[in-house]
Structures are given as C-alpha cells and as structure tokens.
C-alpha cells in the first residue's frame, strides 16, 4: 500500500484559547483538527482540568510541511509569551494524502 508522509502538529495549551486557536488554524489553511481535553504539569504549574480556568486542551493537526511551519511560527510569536503552551511536530504516514 502506498503511504505518504505528512506532519502531525500537536499543541498543548490552555482551554481558554480554544476558539481563538481554531480560528487561526482555519485561517492558516489546515484542513482539519482534533481537540481533546488534557491535564498535566509543566513550567507554569499543575493544570488538573478540575474546572474551566485550569483546563488544558491538546490540538492535533495533520497537514503538509509548509502549513505546519506556518502554524508553529505564528503560534510561537503570538502566544508563547503569555500563555502556557507547548508545540511539537512529528513525521507521520497517511493513506489518503488528498485529505490533508
């Protein structure tokens, strides 16, 4: 079976940012995204998702290299200073390249 490589961009950040980030992701030409609730601990303390203000989310975007680059640069410039956010990109293989 023919496989195609794409990028998986994962962002873990504050739940308060969800609607803003979704707008950014759409505008930067990603074809889709998946959001899950998350909790954990980082340099900005424990975020246990017990209630709204301490909730975290994980956003995953499968896209091509250029889009992943655009989104990560934009997020880094705009959100890294003021928000609890980490972001990483990994290589993945997909079966239907036209979807991503």
């Amino acid at each position, binding site marked *: 079976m023919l496989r195609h490589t794409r990028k998986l961009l994962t962002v873990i950040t504050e739940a308060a*940012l969800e609607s*803003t980030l979704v707008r950014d992701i759409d505008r930067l030409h990603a074809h889709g995204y998946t959001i899950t*609730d998350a909790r954990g601990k980082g340099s900005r303390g424990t975020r246990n998702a017990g*209630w709204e*203000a301490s909730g975290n989310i994980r956003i995953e975007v499968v896209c091509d290299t250029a889009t992943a680059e655009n989104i990560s640069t934009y997020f880094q410039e705009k*959100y890294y200073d*003021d928000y609890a956010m980490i972001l990483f990109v990994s290589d993945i293989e997909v079966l239907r390249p036209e979807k991503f």
Partner: protein
Amino acid sequence: MIDPIILFFLLGAVAGLLRSELRLPAAIYEFVSIVLLLAIGLKGGVELSRQPFTDLLPQMLAVVAMGFGLTLLAFPVLRYLGRFKRADAASIAAHYGSVSVGTYAVAVAYLGSQQISFEEHMPLLLVLLEVPAILVGIVLARGISRETRWKSIAHEVFLGKGIVLLLGGLLIGWVAGPDGLSSIEPLFVDLFKGILALFLLEMGLIMATQMGSLRRHGPFLVVFAIAMPLFSALVGTWLGWSLGLSIGGTTILATLAASASYIAVPAAMRISVPEANPTLSLAGALGITFPFNVLIGIPLYHALAVWAHTFAKG
C-alpha cells in the same frame, strides 16, 4: 447552628489541603453550575413577571454605576500600594468589581434558613454587575486604542456561559410565570440546596489548590482580598439602604458588591489581557475572598444591613 452546605465547603477544603484523591468529575461540576445559574435566573424571572420593568430602572442603573466605581477604586490601590504591574492590577480590579454567583447562592441559602425575605429580582442585578468590571478592566489594562478587538471582547463577555444561562433563566421565568414553572420546580427549587452543597464541595477542593500560589504572592494580596470585600460591602450596604431595599435585599447587595468573580472575568481577561498573570487574581478571589465571604462575610453583611436599617430609623 452552622448550615450544612458550609460544612460541605469545609469538607472539600480539608480534603484538598490534605491532598485527598477526591475530585468531582469536570462534567458534574459543569452540570451543577449550570443548574445553579438557571435556578437563580428562573427565580428572578418569575419576579420580573410580577412587577413593571420601569420600576427597577433606578436600581439597575445604580448597580451598574457601582460595578464601574468599585473597579476604578480597586485599580489605583493595587497599582500604587500593591505595586502590581498595570495589567495585573487591572485584571485583579476587574475580578473584584464583578460578582460571584456561588457567593450569591450561599447568601440566598443563608437568608432562606434564617427566614429573612429579600427582593426576588436580585438575579437581574447580579447579571448587570457581571459586565461593567470586565469592560473597565480591559480599558485600564489596554487604554482605548483602535487595536482593541471590541467585537470579540463583546462576544466573550455577553456570550459566556454565566451570562447566557442567567439571562436565559430570567427570560424563561419571565415568560412562563410562577404557574408555568411549577412543573420544573422539583429540580430547580427543591433540589437547590443539595446542588449547592455539591458545588461548594468542589469549590472547597478548588480553593485548596490556590493555597500554593498564595504563599508565593505574598501578604499584600491576602490583605487586599479581605479588605476590598469589606469596603465593597460597606458601599453595597449604603447603596441598598439608599435604594430602599429591605434588610434581606441590602444583605444580598452587600454580598454581591463584596464577592469577586472567578468564572466570567478570568475567562474574559485571559483572552483580552493575556499578559496579566491569572494565578494572582484567582488566588485572591478563590483562595481568600470566596471562603472569607462564605464563612464570615455573609453573616457580617447581614448584621451590617440590620444595623444600617435600625440606625436609619434613629
């Protein structure tokens, strides 16, 4: 006799401080707060269907003015006495100018168990008090500039969960009237205190998580988080008395003035003033002010209202 709902709050706080594994699932907490917000809105709405809206206009305007005023007073205290950064001072001031629905619910339960009546349209004033502080907070942090995205701020403020449910409840109660609501009373009226007990259990747990950050941010915040509600309660008592509210109504208005927001304002500030440190205002509002109001404040504001009314009679 201490109200059992307060004991639930203490149970949550103690369990949290001892690092118990106890936690309410997020969906349950969400459900409990939705029921509380709707129940409060419905009760106010029923009352609105009984009296002409225009009679309430002076009270509504006075309360909005109080929301603006308290925020504007808190800001210089935080900025110059507390030496907070501009964004932090503005954000904390906004939290203290706005209201906490949880504290309001406890005050309602307190008056209920003492069988003291109050003006039932208070939820309307509750909704009105949520908004002005947020706007003032953003302007204090940002100044009025063209870059401020008022459209998205308005969306954040007016379409937040709290306002939508409170206003929605008010409208449903207003349209349906007392008879129409009797069919849903078992959930929203009869179970109110039980739901509130669960809510307070979770609030106790949340409060305990704020203790760590309080220790880091020092004594000024602790002093402010007690002194500001006491001062605001005086303003609220005076306003309630001048507007001719009953003793119960004055107690509620003082409680509203004294309470600090921990749902609507944090969400709005996080988006609109991202450089403000959210742990500062939450540690104050949740770690100190909420327990202070629930445990000591409300009975104190009641005593203050009684005193104001007897003093006024001479």
